[in-house]
């Protein structure tokens, strides 16, 4: 689950990370009220994606009127496909220095990596590319977490040894996001060192592991409804489907993530554009197929559907019967091309043909066929 900035800050603040005073505003009036309480504020769009500053999603407001105006402009704007549902009004900081602090899962190392750099701010990726040595890294033991001396070393390696006394306990607090919330990425960038020498989280990003959601129902309950996501993805989630919206016209259903991604590749190769990624898993059960079709057909841009299934243990005739049944109960009239192979493929293909569904012998043939039918 990707938390919004104010949510991430609430969580980190509860773990002891200092944050600036701030308030959520859902309307321009609430933003004005926040500014009259807090003084000059930054009005910040709340979206689960980076780059909002460059997209005009952050405005400084010296007065309540300016805050109202800023909120009027930001609430409802579209940032990289996300409608901004609310803004976070945050008191200004007396910035002395901006540093970078974060952790994520390093897939190659199969471990968590903590990262600290004196060169914080928006250009940190450039720093990583041009002078990787400017980012100090630590792979903490996952059973006991980072030890004081390790974090002290990390601070000195990052050129922040003078701040180690304050940094070490702060990093430990951030690290608790792993042990207490199953975070897979957490980032404080910038971590502001004020002119008074205090450490404050200027921004915060927090992403938790979907696989561990069963341990953190509280997060879902508290924050699950704030975001208005893609309507098809939300519907798919309700139906327990692995579904990602794309912006093309051909609906895709595949069983297995690799096969499904491979099908997207084939459609693009044939000159078409996929409307979605939808992996119905190895089993390809009739009920799941119907759910997948229902979600895909919600999207008015969809002009045809390609289904690519390899039946391993599931039988092709079952898949075919389930698909025909789903199509009929949904009253689907758009072109449908099915590539069915594996167990009982002949029986499955016969059932499809009898019911007016075009079977294809290979994924590539199916992709070409659906592109032609939807042109």
């Amino acid at each position, binding site marked *: 689950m*990707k938390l919004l900035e104010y949510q991430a800050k609430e969580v980190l603040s509860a773990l002891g990370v200092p944050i600036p005073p701030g308030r959520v505003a859902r309307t321009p009036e609430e933003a004005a009220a926040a500014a009259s309480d807090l003084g000059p504020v930054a009005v910040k769009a709340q979206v*689960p*994606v*980076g780059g909002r500053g460059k997209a005009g999603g952050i405005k400084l407001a010296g007065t309540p009127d300016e805050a109202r105006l800023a909120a009027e402009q930001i609430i409802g704007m579209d940032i990289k*496909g996300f409608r901004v549902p609310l803004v976070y009004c945050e008191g200004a900081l007396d910035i002395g220095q901006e540093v*970078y602090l*974060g952790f*994520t*899962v*390093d*897939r*190659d190392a*199969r*471990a968590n990596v903590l990262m600290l750099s004196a060169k914080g701010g928006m250009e*940190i*990726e450039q720093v*990583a*590319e041009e002078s990787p040595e400017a*980012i100090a890294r630590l792979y903490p033991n*996952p*059973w006991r977490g980072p030890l004081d001396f390790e974090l002290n070393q990390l601070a000195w390696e990052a050129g922040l040894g003078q701040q180690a006394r304050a940094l070490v306990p702060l990093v430990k607090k951030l690290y608790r996001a*792993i*042990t207490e919330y*199953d975070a*897979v*990425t*957490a*980032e404080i*960038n910038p971590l502001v060192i004020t002119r008074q020498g205090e450490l404050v989280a200027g921004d915060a*990003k927090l*992403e938790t*592991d979907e*696989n*561990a959601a069963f*341990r953190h129902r509280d997060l879902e309950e508290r924050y699950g409804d704030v975001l208005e996501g893609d309507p098809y993805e939300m519907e798919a989630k309700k139906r327990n489907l692995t579904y*990602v919206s*794309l912006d093309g016209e051909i609906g895709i259903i595949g069983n*297995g*993530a*690799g*096969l499904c*991604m*491979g099908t*997207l*590749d084939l*459609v*693009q*190769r044939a000159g078409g554009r*996929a409307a979605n*990624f939808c992996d119905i898993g*190895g089993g390809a059960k009739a009920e799941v197929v119907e759910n997948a079709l229902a979600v895909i057909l919600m999207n008015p841009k969809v002009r045809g559907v390609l289904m690519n299934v*390899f039946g*391993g*243990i599931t039988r092709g005739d079952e898949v075919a019967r389930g698909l025909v049944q789903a199509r009929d109960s949904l009253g689907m009239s758009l072109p449908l091309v099915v590539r069915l*192979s*594996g*167990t009982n493929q002949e029986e499955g293909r016969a059932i499809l043909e009898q019911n007016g569904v075009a079977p294809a012998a*290979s*994924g*590539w043939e199916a992709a070409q066929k659906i592109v032609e039918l939807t042109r």
Partner: protein
Amino acid sequence: MAILLHSGTRVIVQGITGREGSFHAQQMQLAGTGLVGGVNPGKGGTTHLEVPIFNTVAEAVRETGANATGIFVPPPFAADAIMEAAAAGIGLIVTITEGIPIQDMIKVKDFLKGFPEACLLGPNCPGLLTPGVGKIGIIPQRFASPGPVGIVSRSGTLTYETMAALTDVGMGQSTIVGIGGDPVLGLSFSDAIQLFESDPETTHLAVIGEIGGSDEERAAELLASGTRLRVVAFISGRTAPEGKRMGHAGAIVSGNRGTAKTKEEAFRRAGVAVAETTDEIVELLTKS
């Protein structure tokens, strides 16, 4: 010969009495696997699928001499099951379970450093199949046939498809290994390639990768240093959209690796043929 799974491998299944575990344990028997027992705490002393059930892995190892396990335990308990198997001295731990929390797997990986003899395959993988000998996991054996082609893959159904297509053209397989699609995995592409390299019966190899991580790039580097195998690589997901990123941490760690393009280029640089479709995997393997 094959790799990892041989005729002498003595296999148990953890979670054998569950719905999935039970079904696939039976399929494993049908594929010829030497299934010697199962583990389910509280059901020790009973029999299931004509093999004895034990309360703990340690007991199963003691009583049956098991040296491999297939794990079908639900996600909240799967990490513990892996560590239990390693601690009991199991050499090959195949974890089929999908949805294990990433932080659990990071702890498992650290724990396994104390058990260098234990080889973990997966999690979230289809397991492995040595045609004519047996399987641990869920790969459908009916599409496989014995022969010289090794397959190592991150995907399930794409693997089945490739092996079925190979069987159709008369090219059998030595061992089919699904390493799984999770971010934190056991056996890597490079590990599997090294095993195939030293298996005299394997002469050809299909490497089926996906976007994300850089296991494929590392495998390409390994292959660049020389191989006796005829290798074809395929990467799924070249048109997948980039995930919507929030922070910078991921980019700092992975840099510009991990895309289909970087992976394909790495293989080409290593002199490995790259297939653009799964049909082409078979074409390239059968050529010359």
